[in-house]
C-alpha cells in the first residue's frame, strides 16, 4: 500500500497544459438549443425565487457556452454573444471575461417573490474546451475545477465560485449542475457575542474556531476595533475547538491593538485549550486569564 494509491498523477502547477480543443461551434450551439428547451420546460413548475435562481444559472451557463463558441473571434465577439443569450433568458450580463480559451460569465435576474420585495439572483459560469481550465487559469481561482456556481442575491463574487470546464458538459446534457455551492452557514459552528463589561469590550466566542469559521472571528474583531474598541477581551471558555487559523486571528488582533495602544486579553480556563497555548508558546504572547473578571481588572492576576 503506497501513499499515492488511487491518486492520479498530475504535473505540478503552474505548468501550462496543452489546450485540447475537442469542441466545435456547431456542437456548442446544438447544446445551447437543447438546454434552452429543457430549461424552459423545467422552469415553469417552481416558485418565483427558485425560478429566478434557476433562470440565472441557466442564463449564465448558456451565455458562457455561447461565448465560448466565439472566444476564438476575440473577447468582444464572445461577450457580445454571451450577452445576447443571457438577454434571451431575461438575464442581464454583469460581467464577462475571457481567460485563455475560457470565458467566465456572470448574470443577474430580477425576481419579485413578493410585490414589495425586489431581489436579484445571480450566477456565474465558465465554459471552455475540456482539459484547458486547470492549466490556464490564474492561480487565484485556478484549477481543474468542478462546474458550477450560483447564489441568490449575489453573495459570492464570481471569483470565489468554483467553476470549471466541465460546466458545458453538464449543460449539454441538460441536467442541473452537479456541484452546487451551498449557502454559507457559519452560525452552526461558531457563535460570537460582544458586550461591554468593566470598561472592556468582551467578545464571547463559542463553538469551533477553525480554518472555516476563523474568518468570521477575524471580521468581528476587526469590526469591534474599527468601531473604537481599545480594551478587548476574548472569552474562549465556550470554545470547543481552536486551531492554528483561530490562533493566527487572535495574534493578529493582539498585534493590531498593541500597535494602537490598546489591550488584548484572553479568557481561557479549560485545560485542553491551555495546552494548545503552551505547546505553541503563545502563552508567552497573550495575557491569559481564568475569568472575565480577571481579564477586565475586576479581579487581579493573569493565570499564565
Amino acid at each position: 500500500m503506497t501513499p499515492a494509491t488511487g491518486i492520479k498523477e498530475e504535473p505540478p502547477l503552474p505548468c501550462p497544459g496543452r489546450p485540447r480543443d475537442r469542441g466545435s461551434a456547431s456542437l456548442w450551439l446544438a447544446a445551447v438549443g437543447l438546454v434552452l428547451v429543457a430549461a424552459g420546460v423545467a422552469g415553469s413548475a417552481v416558485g418565483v425565487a427558485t425560478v429566478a435562481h434557476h433562470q440565472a444559472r441557466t442564463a449564465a451557463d448558456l451565455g458562457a457556452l455561447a461565448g465560448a463558441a466565439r472566444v476564438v473571434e476575440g473577447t468582444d465577439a464572445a461577450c457580445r454573444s454571451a450577452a445576447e443569450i443571457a438577454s434571451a433568458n431575461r438575464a442581464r450580463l454583469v460581467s464577462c471575461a475571457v481567460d485563455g480559451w475560457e470565458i467566465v460569465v456572470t448574470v443577474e435576474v430580477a425576481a419579485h417573490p413578493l410585490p414589495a420585495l425586489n431581489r436579484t439572483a445571480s450566477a456565474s459560469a465558465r465554459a471552455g474546451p475540456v482539459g484547458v481550465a486547470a492549466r490556464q487559469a490564474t492561480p487565484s481561482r485556478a484549477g481543474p475545477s468542478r462546474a458550477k456556481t450560483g447564489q441568490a442575491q449575489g453573495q459570492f463574487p464570481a471569483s470565489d465560485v468554483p467553476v470549471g470546464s466541465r460546466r458545458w458538459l453538464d449543460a449539454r446534457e441538460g441536467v442541473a449542475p452537479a456541484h452546487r455551492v451551498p449557502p454559507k452557514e457559519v452560525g452552526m459552528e461558531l457563535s460570537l457575542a460582544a458586550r461591554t463589561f468593566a470598561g472592556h469590550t468582551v467578545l464571547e466566542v463559542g463553538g469551533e474556531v477553525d480554518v472555516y469559521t476563523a474568518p468570521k472571528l477575524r471580521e468581528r474583531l476587526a469590526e469591534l476595533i474599527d468601531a473604537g474598541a481599545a480594551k478587548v477581551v476574548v472569552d474562549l471558555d465556550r470554545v470547543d475547538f481552536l486551531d492554528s487559523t483561530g490562533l493566527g486571528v487572535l495574534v493578529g488582533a493582539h498585534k493590531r491593538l498593541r500597535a494602537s495602544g490598546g489591550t488584548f486579553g484572553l479568557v481561557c480556563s479549560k485545560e485542553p485549550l491551555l495546552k494548545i497555548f503552551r505547546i505553541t508558546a503563545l502563552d508567552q504572547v497573550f495575557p491569559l486569564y481564568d475569568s472575565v473578571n480577571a481579564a477586565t481588572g475586576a479581579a487581579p492576576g493573569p493565570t499564565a
Partner: protein
Amino acid sequence: MTAEIAMSTVRLEFSPAPVHVRTARLVGVAVARRAGVAEELLDEVRLAIGEACTRAVALHQQYGLRDPVLVEMSDDGEYMVRVTDRAPIEAGLGLAALPPDELANESLTEEALTVGVGFALLAGFVDDLQVRPVDEGIGTEVRMVWPVRHGR
C-alpha cells in the same frame, strides 16, 4: 485499498475547501474511537487531523490545485492517519516550528504565523509524526500514529 491487506481502512477524499476540514476531523475521530484509541487522546487526534488537513487545503489553495486532499485512516495494531496533499514538495517540507520570540514578531504575517503554529501543534500533539514526500508523484504525506487499546 486492496483486499489482501488485513486491516480496517477508511479513506476520505475532499475538495480542498476549508468547509470540509471539519468533516475530516469528525470522521477521523469517529474512526479513532472505533479503532480503540483512548478517550483522553481523542481531542489530540481531532486537533492533529484538523491541522494536517488545514495545511493541505492551504497548500492546494496556494498552488491553485483542485485535486482532492486524501485522508486515509487505518487500524492495524495502531491507529494511523495519513493526510496527503498534491502540492510541490518544496512547499510541503518548508514547514518549521517557530520559536516563541518569532511568534510575537511584528513583521510576521498571519499566514506565516498560522503555518508555524499549525506545525507546532502537530509536533506537540503527535508523538509519532512524519512529514515526507509521497512515494509516487507530487505531494507530501503527513503521517500520524496513535496507540490503540488491545482486546477491544
